[in-house]
């Protein structure tokens, strides 16, 4: 009887433990993240500077300044002249001419065959 009671108690404890462990594993609580302040974004940024921070030579935009912060040199090139023909027009024209010539040749063959049949 005592053995049976002990066995039942051990079984109950095992069941409680077995059900409790998965409950922790399935709960994605944010608590562990908060409990680990060493992984804060600031620390990561200090150890791994972004490419933007590396561009120390690039002056900041002047959107909040009261003047031009970097004066460009020279005059702006704000006019792309009409490009010379890239050949596409010539190719299209040649293709159309070839199609017309082929059509004309076909017409002549049919006409000659009909004439020969008569």
């Amino acid at each position, binding site marked *: 009887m005592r053995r049976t009671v002990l066995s039942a108690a051990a079984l109950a404890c095992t069941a409680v433990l077995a059900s409790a462990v998965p409950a922790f594993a399935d709960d994605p609580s944010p608590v562990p993240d908060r409990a680990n302040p060493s992984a804060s974004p600031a620390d990561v940024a200090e150890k791994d500077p972004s490419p933007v921070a590396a561009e120390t030579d690039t*002056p900041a*935009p*002047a*959107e*909040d*300044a*009261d*003047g*031009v*912060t*970097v*004066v*460009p*040199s*020279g*005059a*702006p*090139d*704000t*006019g*792309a*002249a*009409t*490009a010379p023909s*890239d050949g596409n027009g010539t190719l299209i024209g040649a293709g159309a001419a070839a199609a017309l010539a082929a059509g004309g040749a076909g017409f002549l063959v049919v006409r000659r065959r009909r004439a020969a049949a008569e």
Partner: protein
Amino acid sequence: MGLEIPAIGVDTPVIPLGLAPDRTVEVPPIQADDPAGWYRHSPTPGRKGPSVILGHVTVGRHGDGVFRHLARLRRGERIVARLENGTAAEFTVDSVRTVPKADFPTDAVYGDVDRPELRLITCGGPRKGDEYRDNVIVFATLSGTID
């Protein structure tokens, strides 16, 4: 950002531009329906200082650029810069100058001023080969804001 110039039918988005590797100002891309570009090292339109916006007069095989008719602007005409915060700055044209690129007036365009002003720049004048000889520059002053 956007730009409206009712007198010459311009209503275009405005992209930010920086410096090219040769230290000249970048220009908007050569494409159909080319946008204007705001030089991002100049003040936002409406802030104190000369805000500089550039656009093409022609865009190669795509034809006319967004600033094709900039030289037609006259003193007193209106320019509206729409800002990303939903407000807008309204400018009035003071003058339109056509200057040789060889004598580009850097100080007049980029130099400090004690009020909000606007510069619109494109190319103009006769072409030498694939390049225009001149720049057309519109000088304008803030005349109001629109919330």
